[in-house]
């Protein structure tokens, strides 16, 4: 495949968007990936699932901040371009 940096940025934006739109109570709790279900062991090895849930939650939090509008505008520009 011949990649360009442009396509990499496009792919990254789409992936982050996909992770950010995973809804907490409609979807993630149903499959047992909600963050309220992650309060588990107090050991210092959280495990993959907890890390993944934390990652999803942090991506969603960051995206709900100022990045939300920036990302939407940028994705409109790039996808249509």
């Amino acid at each position, binding site marked *: *495949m*011949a*990649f*360009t*940096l442009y*396509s*990499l940025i496009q792919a990254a934006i789409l992936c982050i968007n996909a992770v950010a739109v995973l809804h907490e109570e409609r979807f993630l709790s149903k499959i047992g990936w909600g963050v309220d279900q992650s309060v588990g062991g107090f*050991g*210092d*090895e*959280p*495990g*993959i699932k907890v*890390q*993944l849930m934390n*990652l999803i939650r942090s991506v969603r939090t960051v995206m709900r901040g100022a990045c939300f509008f920036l990302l939407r505008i940028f994705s409109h520009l790039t996808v249509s371009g």
Partner: protein
Amino acid sequence: MNVTLILACLLASTFSKNKFGATQKINNICIKNKLTSPGVMDLPHQGYRATKPRARAAPSAGDSVLFDDTSSAAPGMNSQGFYTPAYNMAGPSNDMQGGPGVNNLFADPMASAAMMYGSSLANQGKDMVNKEINRFMSVNKLKYFFAVDTRYVLKKLMILMFPYTHQDWEVRYHRDTPLTPRQDVNAPDLYIPTMAFITYILLAGMALGIQKRFSPEVLGLCASTALVWIIIEVLVMLLSLYLLTVHSDLSTFDLIAYSGYKYVGMIFTVLCGLMFGSDGYYVALAWSSCALMFFIVRSLKMKILPSISSDSMGMGSNSKPQLRLYITVATAVFQPIIIYWLTSHLVR
């Protein structure tokens, strides 16, 4: 002339946001002009591989190794550790040497003042650029990776191509800081990957030109493809290290270095493919894949897999060492795949 001077004053006043203002910058410039160094330390980016890496004498221990510029007498303009001495020197000695010294250069005092303003502008621009860059990545940490010399580069290239006889793979430390590549051949560096990347792009252009398939866009495409694959690999490695909570001291630059070492194998493979045809290509591909896999596994094993002796966390689950082993092996297996992917279209 007067208009440009006024414009320069306006620009200088708008740029100088700190309290120091333009006057102390001018003092700084006067002192620096006095001590103009014949050979300023410049980073080894000039040419690819033709430039000798800095072969300095054996330095004294400690972290002054990185920031000592042994090739020039002046305070290095690039290193930020030297800024404060220049400021301190500016105060007392400027009164004596400022006026008559500078005026000797130009008969016209306006031209000399304009020159001072111009160089102060340039200095302020450089300060701003340095400050912005330092916000994103630490320049000092980057300097560690470029502190190489010829002996290190030669030994490292040999290890990359033939790692089977290398005994000791531990990265040595000196009072909790890792040793620079000059002093420890196991330390990762960024010089070899950078130069190998550039050489690979040029070699790809040459290979395509031999087959009469060259056009300037192809070169850019090849470069960005290779860069994108590096970025993807580093991101995947970072993600997997985060998910498995591997508390290793592998920083982003370390991962970039380790994933950039495959370009040496790629160059070797493409060269053999060009010289010896398709058979030579496959033989060289097999050889460099095996060597690179061995190198990666041995290097990353030290850092990712838990050491047997110190076991502070006794309650690690049973799947942990296996998963860490999977990461190491997956990284190693990924290398020949990407080598094949990026070089097969160059050698038909």
